[in-house]
């Protein structure tokens, strides 16, 4: 697939094989016993993604919808390099920052501020850059005294505030958001929406996974419907979300729940 000039991210024929473990040996002795007793491996393999292709343009906001286990989060994990694909090519023309599920990569014993510094280093900021961005990050998170408490004492909403504050200040070209927009109070949600709007104008490409369909309809330029690791349909948000909702309700058309 020849990339368009303003294409920032492409997935070409990507396959991902997962193992579903029944009883994973976590200890050497368990593994040895399984080997000695010649037990079959306690897992079955399945394709989480099958020949998955996708192309994103600069400044585009794209949403993923689909049932649980359809492969939405797997796509984000492959794009963010947390996991390698089994086959296929992923091309990124820009820095990728991800806010995946809850936690967003914090070490529970570090304070909010320490986690900010650590995450800035992980996302590639130099020491000087991290120092410059600390004050605006702290201000955006608006956590008060909690910024100097270990993050294990944080509530879900506070986790997300911290995650958003970091992701919004590292100048990523591609931003991945997995089920994070629905947490936080109304005021903070508004703040995040404003911020996402500004990012779009600046040309940041945003990829959102959400089960909150109205949010997808409102904020996305395009919605991709994924089932069983394949793209079912993509295009106009209202149309795709509508088809997805009907598919969810009509029995027999629902697929891939696990």
């Amino acid at each position, binding site marked *: 697939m020849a990339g368009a000039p303003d294409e920032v991210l492409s997935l070409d024929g990507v396959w991902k094989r997962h193992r579903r473990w029944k009883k*994973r040996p976590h200890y050497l002795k368990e593994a040895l016993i399984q080997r000695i007793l010649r037990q079959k491996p306690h897992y079955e393999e399945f394709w989480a993604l099958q020949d998955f292709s996708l192309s994103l343009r600069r400044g585009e906001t794209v949403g993923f919808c689909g049932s649980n286990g359809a492969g939405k989060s797997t796509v984000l994990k492959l794009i963010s390099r947390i996991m390698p694909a089994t086959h*296929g090519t992923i091309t*990124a023309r820009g820095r990728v920052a*991800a806010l*995946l599920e809850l936690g967003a990569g914090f070490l529970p014993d*570090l304070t909010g501020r320490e986690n900010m510094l650590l995450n800035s280093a*992980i996302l590639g*900021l130099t020491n000087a850059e991290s120092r410059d961005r600390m004050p605006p990050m702290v201000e955006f998170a608006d956590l008060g005294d909690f910024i100097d408490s270990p993050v294990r004492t944080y509530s879900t909403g506070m986790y997300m505030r911290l995650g958003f504050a970091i992701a919004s200040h590292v100048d990523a070209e591609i931003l991945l958001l997995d089920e994070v927009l629905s947490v936080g109070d109304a005021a903070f949600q508004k703040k995040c929406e404003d911020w996402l709007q500004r990012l779009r104008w600046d040309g940041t490409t945003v990829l959102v996974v959400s089960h909150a369909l109205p949010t997808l309809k409102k904020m996305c330029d395009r919605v991709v419907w994924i089932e069983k690791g394949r793209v079912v349909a993509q295009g106009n948000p209202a149309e795709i979300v509508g088809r997805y909702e009907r598919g969810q309700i009509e029995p027999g058309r629902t697929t891939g729940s696990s």
Partner: protein
Amino acid sequence: MNDSATARSAPRYILEGNADTWGDRRKLIGLVRRLTFRHLAARYRGSALGFLWSMLNPLMMMLVYTVVFQYVLRFKTTEIPYPAFFLTGILAWNFIHVASMNAAVSIIDSQPLIHQVYFPRVALPLAAVLSNAANYLVSLPILVLFNLMFGIVPGTTVLLLPLALLHLLALALALGLIFACVTPFFRDLIQLLELGFIAWFFATPVLYPISFPAANLSAPAFVLYRLNPAAGTISLLRATFLGEPVAPGTLVYSTVVTLILLVLAVGLFRRLAPRFSSVT
């Protein structure tokens, strides 16, 4: 399992053009620095007490072994006073032990990061080893002072120091990387490794000089003994600080083994690192 894939390319992840302007290498250096400082800050917590605490263990061991070997067993080791002889070895041994075991748990301890963000995974064991290396460096002036108390003035052999330190670091790094990438898969390996360290301690010339096994083991057994990479490292450090002669053969054996271990470690780590995010 659906196996209908026809065109199966090997997986590739391409970061194009000036995409990642900061670059992976620069990112790695910045990250290792940040993590190393974090370890050191956690250990010292704003006071020198943390450092004194870390010196307490080797000094205590030195006291115990000196009493046992010199007064109970009436061992005659070398011309060098036993406390100085023992402290030089135990500081290096503790560095190898603690650094590689800290590295061994570094991936497991950072599971939340591994599952949620990408970064060069090698930064974790690297920082674990480097923060202990910093600790070891700080203990060296104390070692020299201590030796002076026993009338041992460092001679020209001190010039060997860079080589000895490099040898020590390479060994700790090789072990640390190997341990770090296997422990996430089998948690009980950590206990096994600790057991291994106990056996290894007695197979390494820390308590006794390398002239003991040289005199008591048969020639082939002594070759085997010298394949222990720590034997050469510690002999080299004793040569550096105490002027104890070191056999070139010992150095060659342990250097070759250390380098082989390092190459194996890097290869193994690269192979296993992509799988860290799928073990829980």
